[in-house]
């Protein structure tokens, strides 16, 4: 990575508050996870504030995706996982038996690294989650689809061809479609796992603008390998290394005055 320093004007539009003043959305308490015998997360303690963008950075294989996927229990699908500690959404542990996983996932939406539209029309892709919720009113679905596409900055490009197959879109458009699909169900939290890593700079820029928009209404958690991106879009940043949370704080603080040696080495590009 070529990053050597992050210019301070990147942080212009970010609130410089301390985490204690924030309303907390997701809390990790001594959260550990192992895939079989291989431990991937070690005692993570983290507070993710509401309606802010929080970035996870760290070298490949450090557990960013793993942690993110725990936040809407996508890891349930993998056999042989052991977790300990707690992961709370608004103070309520999400790993207890009485939590309805599908409801949880409706509240905590997720967008993956590679766009994964369904083999359906653009309209049906966005309407998918709504239909799952049992909404059958046609005008309501149409309104929500339009709202989502407008909010994901895609309406201008696809508004006149909603019945086309989603695969006729470009990669960047597909990724925004997937974001539209995620916000259509009105989640509280949006988890983004390297949403722009497969995209060109212009599409990346669009996605970043979109995130900046979205964070006024949603709690956004984004995993990224791109330091500038983290600096540009996030209010808070967490640095993970080998499954441990090394440092967490306001993005401008973490990037300009990192508290840990490892963080500094990483953001100045000495490894990773």
């Amino acid at each position: 990575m070529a990053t050597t320093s992050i210019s301070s004007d990147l942080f212009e539009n970010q609130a410089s508050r301390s985490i204690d003043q924030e309303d907390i959305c997701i809390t990790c308490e001594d959260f550990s996870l192992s895939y079989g015998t291989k431990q991937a997360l070690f005692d993570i303690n983290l507070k993710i504030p509401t309606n802010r963008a929080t970035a996870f950075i760290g070298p490949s294989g450090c557990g960013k995706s793993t942690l993110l996927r725990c936040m809407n229990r996508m890891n349930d699908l993998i056999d042989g996982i052991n977790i300990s500690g707690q992961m709370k959404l608004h103070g309520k542990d999400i790993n207890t038996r009485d939590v309805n996983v599908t409801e949880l996932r409706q509240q905590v939406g997720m967008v993956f690294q590679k766009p994964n539209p369904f083999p359906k029309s653009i309209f049906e892709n966005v309407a998918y989650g709504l239909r799952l919720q049992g909404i059958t009113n046609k005008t309501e679905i149409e309104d929500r689809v339009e709202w989502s596409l407008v909010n994901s900055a895609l309406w201008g490009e696809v508004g006149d061809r909603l019945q086309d197959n989603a695969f006729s879109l470009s990669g960047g458009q597909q990724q925004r479609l997937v974001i539209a699909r995620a916000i259509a169900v009105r989640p509280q939290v949006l988890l983004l796992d390297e949403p722009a890593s497969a995209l060109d700079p212009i599409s990346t820029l669009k996605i970043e603008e979109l995130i900046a928009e979205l964070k006024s209404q949603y709690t956004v958690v984004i995993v990224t390998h791109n330091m500038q991106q983290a600096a540009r879009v996030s209010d808070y940043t967490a640095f993970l290394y080998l499954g441990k949370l090394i440092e967490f704080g306001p993005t401008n603080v973490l990037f300009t005055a990192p508290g840990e040696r490892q963080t500094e080495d990483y953001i100045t590009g000495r490894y990773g």
Partner: protein
Amino acid sequence: MTDNKKIGFFQSGTPWVWLNAGAVSISMIMVIGLLVLIAVRGLGHFWPKAIWQIEYEEGGGITTLIGERAKTETVSARQLREAGVKYNFKEEFVERTLLKIGNRDVYGFDFRLTVAPLEKSVSLPEELIVLERTEWGNFYGELVAVKEDGVITQAGVEELWAKLSSRVERVAELRERIGDIEKSEIGAINFKMEKLRLRTRAMELAGRDDAEEQAEIAGTKAQLDADYDALKTRLDVLYADIRRDAVTLRVMTGEEVSINLSKVVKATRPNAMSIPTKIQHYFGNLIDFVSDDPREANTEGGIFPAIFGTVMMVLLMSVIVTPFGVIAAIYLREYAKQGFVTRLVRISVNNLAGVPSIVYGVFGLGFFVYVLGGNIDQLFYPEALPSPTFGSGGLMWASLTLALLTVPVVIVATEEGLARIPRAVREGSLALGATKAETLWRIVIPMASPAMMTGLILAVARAAGEVAPLMLVGAVKLAPSLPLDMNAPFLHLERKFMHLGFHIYDVGFQSPNVEAARPLVYATALILVAVIILLNLSAIYIRNHLREKYRTLEQ
């Protein structure tokens, strides 16, 4: 890329490419050769063949022979001498012809052998005619007279021929009307009568003594009887009508034979036909073959019931096998805990595909027909006993047996299809709050549907060509009625049916006149192949359509 030169011939892979290409070509040649052989032999049969008049030296004198050359081969003179031909051949090899002389009712046999050196003169007289008959095979001869309504006409050849043609057409029309009445109308009455009989029997069995119902049954029965009598009178008139005319022909022995036209299906003069007329007759024959009922122990006439039975059976099999195979595959791949047991199940399923099909036939007979069918009869059709309803082979059991036979193919193909659905798409659905079942139903199964169709295509190909198990569970030489007709409930799953594969076996190896039936074997084989190809093409069409709709895997 100068390094390339150093790579040896074998390392470069060229010989393997050639080897593969060779193997593919040999397979292709074999398949194409087979198809061409079947096509040529099968389709050739319908071409109007020339009728030869041969002056043949035999027993010290000259006899006239009239017939079609069915097969010509070269044999050694010694072989002929040993076979008892008394003639001093100068040639070492001679041509020997199998001559179809027809007229089985007159001569007692309808083929004989001739050898070329003894054929003193051959000719193709235009006035020779062929009569295709409803029994006793073809008739060859020279037109002498036409008897119409008791009046005998003896005129010039052309005039007689025109007369005969129009009389044959009239008979064909009458025959169609008789067929209509016998098959649909009387068939329907018989069907209703049988229903009434069963109802009466059921009342007896139940010990019910409902005078009202009995009266109603008696009333309906009287009505049906009256209907039947009316039809019978109409039929009698038609029968008298159809038997009115006759034709007299002179056969090769000089004898004059009179044939009632009611027995004549078709009259042609192949030697007098021009090429366009022959082509016209050719297609006419072909259409008759696929649309007519068989005659004379299947050695003449068409194969329509067999085509119909095959298609019905395959369609029914598809309807049964698809849900079972797909559900089993979904359970195995998506829900069952992967481990020793699922592995064992998978191995067993794969091995099931290798079990000889006759074993399935025996199972079908033992379990479906005797156990299931027997019990169904006891429970639901006691009034028909002791004659079985479902307790003997039938369309339903045959389809079920074949479904069992082909279910492994569908399972394997579907499982592969499910395995190929990208994880990302499933996760995308789950992340939106879909349950596993919703994800399967809305995303995974539609995306895997082309693979399911592939499984079905393979299943159809296998099932349509299968004969051995069918002989035990419902295919018959001659089925009295089609499994689908106008009598409620329209689809008669318990009925026996005809099948092209079984038809081939029956005509080729079980018929009384194997020589005459041989071309039909090829023609039927060709139709069977065509039916399978058609069924598969339609499945492939559907699959490509689905693929187009859900094309993501290629991305």
